[in-house]
């Protein structure tokens, strides 16, 4: 009983390691892709919109005053 339990646990660990590798592989594949331009453009637009709404020297105030 205890031997069988040990065997199943080892099998389980191997299978789970295999699943873990597949899971991580799909994730890392996307993770390593360059950031699409649409997101850099989006952030630049948000930045620009915010800059137009606030004072131009807002950066320093934000960095020092947000703590």
């Amino acid at each position, binding site marked *: 009983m205890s031997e*069988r339990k040990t*065997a*199943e646990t*080892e*099998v389980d660990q*191997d*299978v*789970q*390691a*295999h*699943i*873990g590798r*597949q*899971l*991580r*592989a*799909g*994730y*890392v594949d*996307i*993770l*390593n*892709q360059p*950031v*699409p331009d*649409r*997101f*850099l453009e*989006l*952030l630049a637009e*948000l*930045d620009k919109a915010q800059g137009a709404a606030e004072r131009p020297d807002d950066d320093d105030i*934000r*960095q020092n005053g*947000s*703590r």
Partner: protein
Amino acid sequence: MTAAPPRPPRDELVTHIPSLRAFAVSLSGQVDRADDLVQETLVKAWRNLSSFTEGTNMRAWLFTILRNVYISDIRRRRREVQDTDGVFAESVSVPPQQNGHMDLADFKAALADLPEEQREALILIGAAEFSYEEAAEISNCAVGTVKSRVNRARNALAKKLNIDTSEIGLEPTLRAALGSSVG
């Protein structure tokens, strides 16, 4: 000074875009849809940057936002489609092969077939490598619930994929033991 000065939150935001995309693609199974989810997440994050506490885990904060955007998207789709099965069926492009060979395409299909909350938990722990405590915060549930979801997800994947143990180098006795519990 040994440590570099902390990056302003809005600059740090950019560095997490690859993680957000990886999470969104893993959740939704579709790159186009994932990028729409990431876009909505970035806009929401930008507007709420003042509520982010500097020095805390921004990746976890962003994942929480993305997760909520994703859930809203699922609910919206359900209302539009009026067919809850159809929402997830569309992301399963290829059914898993039953010959015991588990390649990445099979794996993705099996992953897409898991219940939402199990897939989310498995991705947060197994792919994004958050702690159980962080994953519980992101998923807004108890730590024990995350553990249970991850276990159920792993067991379901092992069964669905009908893993051929010879491919992953198991001893025959172990393979026999596996045959009784998986397959």
